[in-house]
C-alpha cells in the first residue's frame, strides 16, 4: 500500500486501507481473458456445469453431449460457467466546469479523480483490467484497459496531467467511447453532467444496450447543490467564460428547484435503465461515496447477481 500511496496524489493510503476489504464486482457477466471474480458470459469446458439446452443450428458440434443423445436420441448442449476478469473503463469528464472548487479544498475534478484512482486500484488489485477515457467537448485521451498495478500509475498520471477545459459534450464523448470499447465491461463515468439531460440519458441507454454495465458518478460541488448566494452577483461560466449578472437571492429558489429536478430526472431515468446513478457531493468524504458504491453493489449480489 505504501508503494501505491506514492504513485499519485489521488491515491490516499488511508482511504485505500479502509477499502481494502472491498471488491469491485460486476452486476452482470463480463468478458475477460483472466479468471477472476466475475462471471464470464462464455459458456465453455472444464468449468463448472451450468445447464443443458437443446441444440440449435450453428452450435458447435463439439458441444453436444453425446451421452445424453444416446439416452434420449436428442441433441443437447451441456453448458458450463467460467469466471473471468473485469474490464473497467473510467470515463472522466474534464470539461472546464469540473475545475470548480467552490468553498471546499478540492475541485470537482480532483474529487472525481480520487474516486476514480481508488476504484482503479481496487479493480487492478483483483486482477481486473482498467482503462481511462477523458473527455470534454469530445474524447481527449484513451488509455486501453490493462491489468497489473503498474497500469495504475499510467492512469493516475493521466488524471493528474489532464487540465479541465472546454465545454462538456457528454453525448458525443459517450458515442465515441461506445465505438472504441467493443468488449463488454464496466463503465464508471465521472461527470457533472452539464449537458442536455435527455441526450445524456439516451446515450447512456445506448451504451447499456451494448451490455456494458454503467455506473454514473454525478459530481457536484456543494455550492451547486445548495446555491448559497444571496447578493447581486456576476456569475462567470467556467466552460464558455460567459457572464451573467443577476440577483442570486431571487434566483435561488428557482435554481434549487431545477437542480433537484435534474438530479431526480437522472436518478429515476437511469435506474429504470439499470444504470447506477450516484451523486458525488464534493463536500462529503470520498470514502463515504465509495462505500455507498460498494454497498449498492453488495445489495445487488444479495439479490442473486441478476
Amino acid at each position, binding site marked *: 500500500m505504501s508503494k501505491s500511496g506514492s504513485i499519485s496524489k489521488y491515491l490516499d493510503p488511508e482511504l485505500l486501507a479502509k477499502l481494502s476489504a472491498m471488491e469491485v464486482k460486476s452486476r452482470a457477466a463480463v468478458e475477460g481473458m483472466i479468471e477472476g471474480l466475475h462471471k464470464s458470459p462464455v459458456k465453455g469446458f472444464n468449468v463448472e456445469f451450468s445447464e443443458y439446452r437443446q441444440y440449435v443450428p450453428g452450435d458447435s458440434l463439439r458441444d453436444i453431449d453425446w451421452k445424453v443423445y444416446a439416452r434420449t436420441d436428442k441433441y443437447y448442449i451441456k453448458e458450463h460457467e467460467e469466471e473471468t476478469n473485469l474490464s473497467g473503463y473510467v470515463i472522466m469528464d474534464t470539461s*472546464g*466546469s*469540473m475545475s*470548480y472548487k467552490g468553498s471546499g479544498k478540492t475541485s*470537482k475534478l480532483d474529487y472525481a479523480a480520487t474516486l476514480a484512482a481508488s476504484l482503479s486500484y481496487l479493480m487492478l488489485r483483483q486482477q481486473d483490467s482498467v482503462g481511462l477515457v477523458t473527455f470534454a467537448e469530445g474524447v481527449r485521451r484513451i488509455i486501453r484497459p490493462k491489468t497489473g498495478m503498474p497500469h495504475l500509475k499510467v492512469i493516475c498520471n493521466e488524471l493528474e496531467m489532464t487540465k479541465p477545459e472546454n465545454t*462538456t459534450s457528454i453525448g458525443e464523448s459517450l458515442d465515441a467511447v461506445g465505438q472504441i470499447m467493443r468488449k463488454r465491461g464496466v463503465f464508471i463515468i465521472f461527470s*457533472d453532467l*452539464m449537458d442536455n439531460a435527455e441526450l445524456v440519458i439516451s446515450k447512456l441507454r445506448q451504451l447499456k444496450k451494448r451490455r456494458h454495465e454503467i455506473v454514473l458518478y454525478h459530481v457536484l*460541488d456543494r*455550492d*451547486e447543490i445548495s446555491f448559497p*448566494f*444571496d*447578493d*447581486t*452577483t*456576476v*456569475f*462567470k*461560466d*467556467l*466552460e464558455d467564460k*460567459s457572464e*451573467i*449578472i*443577476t440577483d442570486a*437571492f*431571487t*434566483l*435561488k429558489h*428557482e*435554481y434549487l428547484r*431545477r*437542480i433537484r429536478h*435534474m438530479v431526480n430526472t437522472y436518478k429515476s431515468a437511469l435506474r429504470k435503465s439499470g444504470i447506477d446513478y450516484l451523486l458525488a457531493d464534493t463536500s462529503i468524504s470520498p470514502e463515504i461515496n465509495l462505500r455507498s458504491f460498494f454497498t449498492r453493489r453488495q445489495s445487488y449480489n444479495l439479490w442473486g447477481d441478476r
Partner: protein
Amino acid sequence: MTFISPWFLLGLLGIAIPVYLHLYYRKTPVQKEFPSLRLIKLSVEFVARRKKIRNIILMTLRILTVVLVVMAMARPFLGSSASAAADAQAPSAFVVLLDNSMSMSSVDKGISAFNSARSKALELIDQMTENDRATVGFVNEPGRLGYSQLTWDKEALKKIISDSKISAGGTDLASSLLPALKLLSPLKTHKKAVFLITDMTESSWRPFLERYDIAETDKSIDLIVVPMGAQAVDNTAVTDLRVESPIVMTGKKTLVKAQIANYSKQAKKIRAVFAINGERKSERDLEVEANSEKETDFEVVFAQSGMNRIALSINSDALPADNERHAALRVFDPCKILIVKPENVPGAPENKEDLFVKFALNPLAKSKDNSFITESRSANELNNVDFKRYAALILINQRHLSADVLKRLSEYLMGGGNLITFLGDRTEPEWYNENLTDNLGSSYLLPARLFKRVGNAVSKSVYYRLTDLDLGHPAFNIFEKEENGDPSRARIYEFFQVKPNSSAIVLCRMSHGFPGIVEEKRGAGKSLLVTFSADTKWTNWPVRPTWLPFLHQTLISMITSKEATVKNIKSGMPVSITLMQKDAGKLKIVLPDETEISPSSNNGHKGVLHLTVTNTEQAGYYEIVSDRLGVLTAFAVNPPAAESRLEKINMREIPRFIPLKDEPGKRTVKDKVSVLRNGYDLSGISLIMLVLLAIAENFLANKPAKKRTE
C-alpha cells in the same frame, strides 16, 4: 405648524426600515465563477417572467405609497357631512331641535318617546366644547328657539331641555327649523349643524316637504335627524268635535258631531263617552275599521246658558293625549228682538211693515222654543223700554225718534247692543244725518250718511240687484253654497244713496255700484244699515227665499260676535279676547289642570279691554272668569287631528337630512355625532397603510432576511 395627532410623527421612525433594508441589501455585484451557467440562465429566464408581475405589483405599491403620502399630508377626512369637510379645528355651532309635539307623548313598551328624545338632546348638548355655541329649539306648533341667539352656556341649554314639556300642539317643522337655519347661516368659521330629534311622523314631514325645498338650504349646514321610535304604534283618537248649527239655544235639541279615528292595522271597538260640563251624557260603542275615521253624532239638549264645556273621550291607548277632545260652546237663551215699526197713522190700517221681519224671525210668534222671540213696538211706545233686554233692535222706516230714545239707543249700541236700520219712504235723510249721526258725536248710530233716493218704487220700471256680496261676512256666508240660494236674484226698485263711514264695511252693493247694506262696529255693538225697505214696497226680497236666512245669519253674527267667543284653537297659539271693561272686574284664567293665572291685558279705548292668553300649551278647556260676572268666555285647546297619525315617513324621501339612528348597545349618539362632525380622519389610517405598504414593498423587493439564511 401644528399637528392634530402629533404622535403620528413617531411614524417617521418607520423611515428607518426602508433605509436599513435599502442599505443592507444594496451592494455592488460580486464576481463569482460557476461551473456552468446553464441552469442559472434557465432560472433567470423563468424568474424574469415572474419578476415582471412582481415589478408591476411593486410599481403599484410604490404609486400607492406616493398617493398615501400625499393624502396623509393633505389630512383627508371621510364624512358625508359638511362639518366633516370643514377645518377640523373649527368650533361647532349647532341647534338642537326637540320635537315636543303631541305625537311625541306616545309610549311604546313603557318607553316615552319624549323622555328618550330629551335624553338624546342632553347628550348632544353635552358634547359642546368651550368654543362651541349652540341653542335649543322646540318643534311644535308654533315652534320656537329656547334662545334666539347661540350661547356658550351649556348648563342653561340643558336646563331648558330638562324643563321642557310635551305640548298638545302639532308638529310645525318649519317654525323652528327655518329660524335655526337663519341663525346658523351667517356663521363662516364654524362647523354648523341642526340636530332634529323627532318621531318622523309622515303627517308632520309631508306638508313641510311639499312647501319647502330643503335640498336648496344652506349646504354648509349639516341637517341631522335623530329618529325616535322604530315603528309606528297603534293609535285611536277623537279627531273632531263640533256643533254645526250657528247658534245653540237652551232647551233646543242640538246635534254634536264627532269623528273618531282608528290608525291601526285592525278594526277596533271603541267606546265613546260624551260629557257636558264634566257630566256624562251619552256613551256608545263604535266599530271603527282599520286605518279609517268614523263620524258619529250625539243629540243633546243644553240646559245651561253661557259657556258650556263639551268633551268626548274614548278608551286609553299608547297616545293618551288625543283620546279626549274638548269644545267650548256658548249656549244662548232665546234672543229677544225688538222691532220698532212705523207709527200707525190715525184712521189708517195698522202699519204692517214689520210683518216680513217678524215672520222671518218667529213665524209662529212663539214665546219660547224658538231662536228668536220678537216684539214689535212703534217709536212712541219705547219710553219705558229697557233696550238691554233685547239682543237686537230693528228700526223699520222711522220718520223721527225722540231725543231720549236716540240717547238710549246710542248707549245701548255702544254698550254692546245690535241695531239694524231699514229705510223707506218715511225716511228723511237730512234728519237722519243730523240726529242719528251728527248730534250724537262719537256715539253715532248709523254706519253711513244718507243722500237722495234712487229708483222708483212706484213705477217699478227699473230695478237693481244686490251685487258684490261679501260672502266672507257671516250675514252672507251661508250663500257661498249655491244650494242655499242667491240674494242677488232679489229686485230692489228704490233705495237711498249712502256714503259709508270710514270704518264701515259694505256687505253688498247695488248693481250700479252704490252701497246696499253697510255695517259698522260701534263701541261693543254693531250697527247695520239696509238702504231699502223691510217690506215689499221698495223690494221683492222679503218674499224671496233668501230673506229669512239673511236675517237669521245677520242677527246671529251680530249677537255671537259681540260675545267674547273664541273658537277652538290650536295649542300654543295666543288667544286674544275683547271684553267690556265694566264687565271685567278682576279676571283670572282657569287652565285645564285647574291652575289659575292672571291674564295680561291692556285697556283699549271706549271701555274695551283686550285680553291675551298665551299659556295655551295644555290641551283642554280654558275659562276666563270675572269675580263679578263669573265665566265670561271659554275656549278649548285640542291637538291637531293630523298629529294622531303616527305613521313614519321613509327616510329616503327626506333630502339633505342625515339620519343618526340610535341602536341600543352600539355606538352612542355622542360618538356618532363626533364621527359625523369630524368625519373619519383618514390621516392616521393613511399613515398606517403607508407603513404597511412600505413593509410590503420592501418585502416584495428584497424578501425578508429570515428567508435568506436558508
